[in-house]
């Protein structure tokens, strides 16, 4: 799925909420519009969290770093230099 799908959906919800907050007279309806805006913000948080995961993966892999953690490093035995 492209990132634009949930982002445009969240933008639609947010703008509908802005319209409701600006144009409604009843306080309960203003509260519902604020709920719509909060839902849009939550969708944005989840989507940008996924994008941040993509960025983090790209960062780690581009630095030639392994994605795992090193638990133990074992020393190799001393190399014997053969003189000839």
């Amino acid at each position, binding site marked *: 799925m492209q990132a634009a799908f949930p982002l445009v959906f969240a933008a*639609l919800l947010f703008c509908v909420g802005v319209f409701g907050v600006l*144009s409604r007279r009843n306080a309960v309806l203003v509260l519902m519009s604020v709920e719509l805006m909060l839902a849009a913000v939550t969708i944005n948080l989840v989507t940008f969290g996924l994008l941040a995961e993509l960025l983090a993966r790209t960062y780690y892999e581009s630095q030639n770093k392994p994605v795992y953690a090193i638990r133990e490093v074992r020393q190799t035995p001393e190399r014997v230099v053969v003189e000839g």
Partner: protein
Amino acid sequence: MTVIDVVMLAVAVLGGASAILVVVSRNVVHAALYLVVALISVAGTFLLLGAEFLAWTQVLVYVGAVIVLILFGLMLTRAPLGPMPQDNDHTRLAAALSVALFGFLAVLIMQAFGDTALPLSVTPTAAIGEILYVHWAFPFMVLGFFLTVALVGAIVLARREEGEGPEPLFDAEMDSERPTPAPTDVSTTPGVTRPSQEIRT
């Protein structure tokens, strides 16, 4: 377009339509029921993005609690419930502003993220539980304590307006004429009468 794109498009169309119906509906209860559909479609978006814990939390908290709270608030107060005009004078200005904002945001999003594919993977709820209760256990408990404090503060604020303890009936009727809420021990002490009581007798 893959299957998940088609499902996401359907969920977005359903949620957007019901959100628009929330803000143009002339009946408050209908608006609340359309808000249920909009929030369920938001939960469907979370499911499609792989955040299943967030999706079920959205269903439980928003659809299960907030909507029920709004409906109870409408039923228990004396709010008028029939269909009536709910808009104020500058509806056209608000519509123009929100359409312009949506156009701006949509162009911006399509230019920035138009061809960015999301790395979709299901986040298991067990991993969230481990992170929340093991790594972030202390901030989580602090948050719970703050919520308890907010709850107690809300109860204290709500009770202070009505006065502490039961008052006589005529005091409740004269509440709007008093400039400041009087202490409750006035009615128990004989010989002290307020001007409102003198007028009434």
